[in-house]
């Protein structure tokens, strides 16, 4: 499976040129994205109707809470931060044709590493330094964690889907063991790591409750996007992903690049975990596994591996999850409806892309 088969890997920046042409293309893209979302909402609305729930009210609560109310939008933005890092990590891998399905394990280990180190460091050094070092440690742990699948893929050709899946199971167990047995906070009876004091966490933005993690998340995904689209390194990765034979022909060192992709991808997923702990959670509790990566994977596909589009889709996911929680509470629908909604959006968008692709093929060559 090549990255190309997933989405037309056009280079956004070098894509359509002049003014009106660009507008038309952008408009079409918007239509191709928004149209299916509307269709998906309609389908999910039918399900709500079948459950005896007024879909319009449901959606209006989602939008009100997730997007329009000041505190709601702050929550949405805060929730986006780790998701953006995950999306960035997945984009790096997927664009390079590597199906890293181990994001959740990498996320958890990053989180545990940060939670274990930050409170300890904060006792000895200034908070900013503690955060920085904890962040670096978390990233390093996640990178090391990815070495097994990376080396197996690069030098043995072992399919990374199975190894990363396996490493996720293993990572979740390991995170648990670490929390319960190694980094347990002796001061509490609940199995969890020591808590980083609120004052020591990542600062909030201005007078809001938005974690500054959002800024880092945006920086990360934009940086990844620019790296993938504007730098020589990113181009190399994209070539490996789009056509590995062309990569060999062009003289790229595919195994080294493969390991680099894993390291970057896992590192970013680890950062996501660190950020969630250092910015929001303050600690890691036993058995905690939000499973963010698995939900972000479809978002990244929907964004066609474009960083900016991924911001929008991660935003959509956050609005759906923050707003959905509120709407579910007010309308008496279980929270699980959000999952269904996300799945329907995903499948409808995938179908839309297929139809679009067929059209292009029929019209073109």
């Amino acid at each position, binding site marked *: 499976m090549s990255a190309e088969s997933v989405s037309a890997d056009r280079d956004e920046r070098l894509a359509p040129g002049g003014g009106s042409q660009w507008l038309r293309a952008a408009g079409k893209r918007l239509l191709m994205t928004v149209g299916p979302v509307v269709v998906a909402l309609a389908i999910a609305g039918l399900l709500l109707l079948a459950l005896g729930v007024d879909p319009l009210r449901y959606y209006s609560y989602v939008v009100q809470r997730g997007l329009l*109310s000041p*505190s709601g939008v702050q929550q949405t933005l805060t929730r986006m931060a780790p998701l953006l890092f995950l999306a960035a990590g997945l984009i790096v891998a997927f664009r390079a044709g590597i199906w890293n399905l181990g994001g959740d394990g990498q996320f958890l280990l990053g989180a545990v590493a940060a939670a274990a180190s930050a409170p300890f460091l904060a006792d000895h050094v200034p908070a900013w330094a503690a955060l920085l070092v904890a962040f670096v440690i978390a990233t390093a742990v996640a990178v090391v964690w990815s070495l097994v699948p990376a080396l197996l893929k690069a030098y043995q050709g072992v399919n990374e889907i199975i190894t990363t899946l396996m490493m996720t199971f293993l990572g979740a167990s390991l995170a648990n063991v670490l929390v319960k047995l190694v980094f347990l906070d002796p*001061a509490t*009876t609940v199995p969890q790591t020591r808590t980083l004091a609120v004052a020591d966490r990542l600062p909030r933005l201005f007078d809001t409750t938005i974690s500054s993690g959002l800024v880092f998340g945006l920086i990360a995904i934009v940086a990844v996007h620019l790296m993938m689209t504007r730098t020589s390194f990113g181009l190399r990765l994209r070539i490996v992903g789009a056509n590995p034979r062309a990569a060999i022909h062009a003289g790229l060192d595919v195994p080294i690049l493969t390991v680099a992709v894993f390291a970057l991808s896992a590192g970013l997923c680890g950062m996501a975990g660190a950020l969630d702990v250092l910015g929001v959670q303050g600690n890691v509790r036993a*058995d905690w596994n939000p499973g963010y990566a698995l939900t972000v994977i479809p978002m990244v596909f929907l964004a066609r591996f474009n960083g900016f589009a991924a911001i929008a889709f991660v935003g959509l996911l956050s609005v759906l999850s923050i707003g959905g929680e509120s709407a579910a509470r007010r309308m008496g629908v279980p929270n699980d409806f959000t999952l269904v909604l996300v799945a329907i959006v995903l499948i409808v968008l995938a179908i839309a892309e297929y139809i679009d692709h067929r059209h292009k093929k029929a019209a073109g060559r």
Partner: protein
Amino acid sequence: ADVDAIAILTPEEGTDFGWNQQGIDAAQAAADKAGVELIVAQGLGYGDVRPTLRELSEEGADLMIAHASGYNTAAPEIAEETGVPVAIVDAPDARKEGLIGDYTLSGHEGAYLAGVLAANQSRSKTVGIVVSGEPPAWNAQSAAFAQGVHAADPDVKVIYAVIGPAAYSDAAGGKRVTESVIAAGADIIFGQGNGSSFGMLQAVETTKAADGGDVLFIDVIGDKTSIDKGHLLSSVVWDMTPVFTAMIEDLKADEYGTKNYSIGVEDGSVFLLKTPQVDEEAWAAMEKVKDGIVSGEVTVEPVWEATDVRSLMSDVAQ
């Protein structure tokens, strides 16, 4: 202070015949009693509840009951941030006047009584404890149950088994482990678990004891009588209404956060459910011990650590 509305946040839907349902029902009862509104936010999971806490504080909740030990980091933080008082569990030291109250609940006295009942009613003289996880409140009950059993009859064996990590929804795991414990000789199972407790109940209903007779189940926190098929022996029921009522009263009196809340056998907020399966003699023996607890003759010390719990069980390699 004025109290118009309180809110409760639970990780699971309030239909679990257990922790979540008891919490919501009690909050409703307390709210009704005090004439205040109750806002229920259920099924929130074990992730980050800060967004919901903030939203509820905006909606005018005067007290937010964060009804899960996993919420006890987030809730105090939001209380500090919004100024809205919160109630948390399993963090007694976090109490803060006017802002944070703790209601670390333990039915350990009740569990002790359940142990007495079980020891007296067990035919095989072997009883089992099956838990889906090892949070402190459950540890306290497991330990007390074992102590109660041994107090009533030192020769009765207690077998202890944890289903495993992430076992809260593992109904199949609950059934499997319970069946193994029954096979090891237990004819009464003391079970603690959320989704997985239904699997334990199923195991008890569908497995025969070594003597071919029925196996009985002692539940905790909630009351599963309505879905019982004749195997429910008892339940250590937690009635949280007094706790929540006291919280509202303290809030009104501006005394919130000055004390911790708890439940116990003495005021009837922890009690054993009596089902048709109960043997009258065993019940009478239990009642006697209960009187001892109420009078202070018998004291039950809670044990919170998992390793300490294990060491109380029969056959533990020390």
